[in-house]
């Protein structure tokens, strides 16, 4: 996929639009990624989810299961989809700069 341009810098994305190098993530990048996922603005609510995902990932090296995400953030699945129209995996994880969820499709 085309690179993501953040502050004039080109950040490479993979075909699915996930960061090629998750180390390059920062808040600005998140905002730019959000635009690719139909999230015009990252609200506090969004950040709660994003930060939760990043913390969890830093701690366990994996993305949380959806039930856990909902429980721990207090957002039910409906809210998650309202916040991130393509859902927790393609939407939230992408914006949070996590690794691309694999496997179960």
């Amino acid at each position, binding site marked *: 996929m085309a690179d993501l341009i953040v502050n004039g810098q080109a950040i490479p994305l993979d075909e699915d639009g996930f960061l090629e190098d998750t180390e390059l993530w920062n808040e600005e990048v998140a905002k730019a990624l959000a635009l690719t996922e139909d999230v015009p603005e990252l609200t506090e609510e969004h950040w709660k989810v994003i930060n939760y995902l990043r913390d969890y990932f830093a701690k366990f*090296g994996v993305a949380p299961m959806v039930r856990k995400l909902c429980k721990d953030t207090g957002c039910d699945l409906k809210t998650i989809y309202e916040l991130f129209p393509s859902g927790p995996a393609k939407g939230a994880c992408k914006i949070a700069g996590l690794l691309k969820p694999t496997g179960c499709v």
Partner: protein
Amino acid sequence: MARLDQGPPHYEQMLPPIIKENYGKWRYHEIPRPGVLKHVSETGAELYSIRVGSPRLVSIEFVRDLCDLADKFCDGHLRFTARHNVEFLLGDASKVEPLIAALTEKGLPVGGTGASISNVVHTQGWVHCHTPATDASGVVKSVMDDLHDYFEEMKLPAKLKIGLACCLNMCGAAHCSDIAIVGVHRTPPRINDEKIQKGTEIPSLVASCPTGAIRPNPKAKSVIVNEDKCMYCGNCYTMSPGMEIMDPKNDGCAILVGGKTSNARTAPSFSRMVIPFLPNNPPRWPEVTEAIRNIIDVWAANARQGERVGEWIERIGWERFFTLTGIPFSDKLIDDYIFSRETFRTSAAFKF
């Protein structure tokens, strides 16, 4: 914008009038000729279903052809079966033969009912999947060409259901088929550290291995495989692009037999491996088609009327199956996984 969560179209709008009228009122059926089911209703109505083989992987032109026929003969209705055959539904007996003639002209086979082989439930293979150990459609085409008579006639001891899955994910759900063709790898994954670093949740990858063959390699931010423990299931590849499992030289097909899912007579049963490996030999997989024909011929010659492949084998004993088919037995066929114990012959009674 799409309407979210509207669900599938309602089936009622898809049913031909004769079915709407006799919905739930069918009394019995007959098979007047191979490929034709005649269902008779309480009301006296008679429905003829003409079953037609499909390659499943089709173009929209094919679908449009079907529509043309359905419009011409069946008032614009048709259905597909659980095994991906097409069924034309006719209220009018006099249209059966003309429809069959039209189908034959198009090269479409009519059959698959009663004691015949039906279509092969199968998967994507090299056409569209990322982890196949063999192709799907090509193997199926080769096998069905070879067994064509058995589709068009009803001369087998019982129904014969073949399934194919191009890798152990088993999307063809072949594991309970009379005959299963399963794509198998035979070498451990080759690790691509870079891909793992970039895109893999290492804990998930480690957890994915059923035999515990994978352990983290923190230095390389990657993993290590204990090759002695690996049995090439490919589950790690599903979790990570860095576990390259495809190996053209050593990928191929295993053959399993004797499964069924119906509860009629005997309980549903798993297919059992009888040939651990046959090479991928495109375009016609001659080793596979021959192996299958051999099994079917021996079954057809020896089984009693109404005996599915597995029922026949369980009656005569697996040891006899190997003698009769001439298939060599090997240690590969002996289970060594979690539920192996139940397969060991804990009895002194067996046939030589």
